[in-house]
């Protein structure tokens, strides 16, 4: 071989050694240090990879779309056709929040709670994983069906009419949340555009149903009543003559305040229906602080119900010990009580059912999976009283509507219902208007809690809203039964 050929051979060998170096370098950057590089803050690939995911839609129980991703020229856009559902559905946006390059992944509500399913981060078999890697299939998210009824949700927001407040509708027995409204609320689509167009972002982003804590007012008498009946203290027809009584609890005066003029002697049922404070103050103090606390905790006070969205813990009292005046006051619905509307709706559902506060459930199903996730959300949360007590209280609540101040709930609606109004004093300003109830009166299907912040009197402001909500819920049920629509959104 010529000398040139020899040297060419050597050069060829050197070339292949150099190529081996290149291969090694490729392995280093493409494999060995890949993890570190992926987590660098100036690496927008992870965010963009998230954008490429075909995020699954969120639908209500009838299949109506609450959130879905539409692709415009290959760019994903998350749309929210039912803005009334914003407090529940939440948001999923690339702009909300500060971060490197001004873009961070932000999600709230159901978008956050069911994020894994919506992204399609579910276990696939190894063959599927290999196939989707080789074929570079985009990750496909699953459709999530919520228990919400979009039509009912829209109606509740309508009825709040822009006032600050909240409405929660729970299905009796199952605990499924059919509506959960918080007003005022945000427009999830606007979050993607830029800033929230309002002066006080906290006000619109707050979910008052789950995170707003308010004194429940006379609606809390329901708990005192259930405790007293379950403890055998009174019956529905136990008579009192509290109509013109003022009792002193260690110097703290409590009167009846709310009974119709002239009515002095009445039974417990009417004391409830007319919201006679002194009757309940006495019931509470007769039960005594330890027992009352037990019952209150049995009803979930001091805790938050398990829920996919974050929920604030309710409160019976702020300190370890309750004084007599405080106990008396809490028993008729004031004191240091603080409850979320969601919690009060569960109380109503407990009385409308078998005495158990159900776990509020949001998930109806996940396409192709999630049976276990649905089951995990369901079930009883607290069982403070027996089904028998619940039945008794229920009947009293029906009386409260038929003959008490809660009658404004059903007036003109054509439905039968049970319920209790509340007017919670808040020191300065108008009191909060409350209503909790259920319909129909016999074998109730739905329970509701209505709160209008600083709205005024419960019977004039909150109860009519509550009645209309229950009416709508029942009407929608009947409508769907008539048109024979299959229930449940996307088929599992």
């Amino acid at each position, binding site marked *: *071989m*010529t*000398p*040139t*050929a*020899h*040297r*060419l*051979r050597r*050069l*060829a060998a050197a*070339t*292949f050694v*150099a*190529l081996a*170096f*290149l*291969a090694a*370098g*490729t*392995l*280093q*950057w*493409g*494999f060995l*240090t*890949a*993890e*570190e*590089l*992926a987590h*660098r803050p*100036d*690496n*927008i*690939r992870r965010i*963009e990879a998230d954008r*490429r995911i075909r995020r699954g839609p969120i639908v209500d129980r009838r299949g109506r779309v609450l959130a879905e991703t539409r692709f415009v020229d*290959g760019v994903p856009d998350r749309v929210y056709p039912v803005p009334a559902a914003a407090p529940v559905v939440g948001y999923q946006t690339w702009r909300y929040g500060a971060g490197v390059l001004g873009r961070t992944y932000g999600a709230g509500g159901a978008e956050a709670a069911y994020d894994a399913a919506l992204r399609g981060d579910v276990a696939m078999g190894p063959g599927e994983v290999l196939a989707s*890697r*080789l*074929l*570079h299939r*985009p990750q496909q998210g699953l459709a999530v069906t919520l228990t919400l009824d979009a039509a009912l949700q829209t109606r509740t927001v309508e009825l709040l009419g822009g006032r600050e407040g909240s409405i929660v509708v729970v299905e009796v027995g199952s605990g499924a949340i059919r509506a959960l409204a918080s007003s005022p609320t945000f427009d999830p689509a606007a979050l993607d555009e830029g800033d929230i167009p309002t002066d006080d972002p906290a006000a619109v982003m707050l979910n008052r149903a789950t995170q707003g804590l308010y004194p429940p007012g006379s609606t809390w008498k329901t708990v005192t009543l259930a405790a007293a009946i379950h403890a055998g203290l009174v019956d529905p027809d136990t008579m009192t003559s509290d109509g013109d009584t003022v009792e002193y609890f260690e110097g703290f005066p409590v009167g009846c305040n709310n009974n119709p003029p002239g009515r002095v002697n009445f039974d417990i049922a009417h004391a409830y229906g007319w919201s006679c404070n002194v009757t309940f103050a006495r019931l509470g103090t007769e039960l005594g602080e330890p027992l009352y606390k037990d019952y209150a905790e049995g009803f979930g006070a001091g805790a938050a119900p398990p829920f996919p969205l974050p929920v604030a813990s309710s409160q019976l009292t702020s300190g370890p010990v309750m004084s007599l005046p405080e106990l008396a006051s809490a028993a008729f619905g004031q004191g240091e009580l603080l409850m979320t509307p969601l919690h009060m709706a569960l109380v109503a559902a407990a009385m409308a059912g078998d005495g158990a506060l159900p776990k509020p459930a949001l998930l109806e199903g996940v396409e192709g999976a999630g049976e276990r996730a649905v089951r995990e959300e369901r079930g009883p949360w607290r069982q403070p009283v027996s089904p028998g007590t619940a039945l008794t209280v229920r009947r009293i609540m029906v009386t409260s509507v038929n003959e008490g101040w809660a009658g404004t709930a059903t007036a003109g609606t054509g439905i039968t219902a049970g319920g209790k109004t509340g007017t919670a004093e808040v020191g300065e300003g108008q009191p909060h208007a409350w209503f909790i109830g259920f319909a129909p009166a016999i074998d109730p299907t739905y329970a509701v809690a209505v709160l209008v912040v600083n709205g005024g009197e419960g019977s004039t402001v909150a109860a009519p809203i509550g009645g209309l909500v229950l009416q709508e819920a029942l009407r929608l049920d009947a409508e769907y039964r008539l048109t024979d629509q299959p229930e449940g959104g996307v088929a599992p």
Partner: protein
Amino acid sequence: MPAPPANPQRRTSRWRPTEFVLLVLAAGLTLSAQSALVHGTAGEIHLRDLWPAALLCGLFLVIHLTLVLRRSTGDQVLLPILLALMGLGLVLSQRLAPGDLPERQGLWVVLGTVALGVGLHTPVDLRLLRRYRYSWALIGVGLVALTLVFGRGLSQDAPRLWLGVRGFQFQPSEILKLVLVVFLAGYLADKRELLSQSSTRVGPFRIPPLPYLAPLAVMLGGALALLAAQRDFGAALLLYAIGLGMLYLASGRLAYVVLGLGSFAAGSWLLHEQLTVIQVRAAIWLDPWSVAADHGYQLVQGLMAMAAGGVTGTGLGQGMPEVIPAVHTDFVYAAIVEELGLAGALAVLAIYGGLFWRGYRIGIRARGVFAGLLAGGLTLALAIQTFIIVAGILRIIPMTGITLPFLSHGGTSLLTSLAAAVILFRISEQSATSQAPPVPQSLSAARVSVGARG
């Protein structure tokens, strides 16, 4: 050209079956790359979207047929490798180049393929290349000199490396690379006896006789200085490395290479103190992370892109290589690692390895020193260029602004690489048709002797 003598010892089929089989494989690769891109960007594939790749494969098949018709005995692996690389380059250009650049590149690719087809049949008399080597070299240097005056850059501050008239521009430094190889092959073929004798000693090193090394040094130095003035350091490094490599090829003295590398290191140290551009490049290379927001942005983005690929890549059209500046030219390898994955990138390196292997093989079997040097030099040029750019992307050496042959976007780069391939192919034909021991008429090894005209 003399009629090929009867050739009983080498029974290569006139149908060039290896080439055909490999062409089919390469066509498959090109078409699947194209359809992957279409699928990755549009989400669904219509057959008509595959026309760029299909057109290229068709052209190459036609070339194959013409070679068969002419009973060519040239290397059968070169053409499929070209199809694979050009096809992939075409797909990458569609993927990465902004605006109407992909269409321009498509035009270059088609023109280049047609020119390839023509060039493979045009009788190339290597004597012409050899005889007028000084002229070629001067033309090359002259064109580069023109860029000092008339040169235009891609943007305001970019090096002004292009010459052009309306709508059509080319990069003279690419051509300089080619003519310099031709020049050196001729010069060193004539002088190689002299060069391997040593008449001067400087310390432990032996330097070739100065009267003969001088023109060599002048040509190299002139080209390098010119390019340094234009801040095209990648091309300067490339040319210098090619020169060293060919010097070794011709002289066999590793010492020359060592000396050359040493003086390069000294030179770059000196320049480092003087020129901020080099300082910046070196700083980026040593610690890109601290300047990741400005100077180091391109390199860091490239590294992050490669980290995102995994074994199978993100898929053509589904990664994010477009955040890397100049990804369609300088950093196309990063896009390959990201979208085709480790598997794809290593496969691309293997294809380049195949190209170099065939090139060196052609050089080894070439008849005549000049042909051997020419083939070796062209292969070396392609290999060094590939190494410099990929090593820069991988942070093995500092980044330079040269292109990856065939895969980077750019018309001049493509044409010069194709010209190199044409010459390699023609050399392979001539060695195949010559008998052993060779007395070829056109390549006269016997004329290499002391005192022959240079």
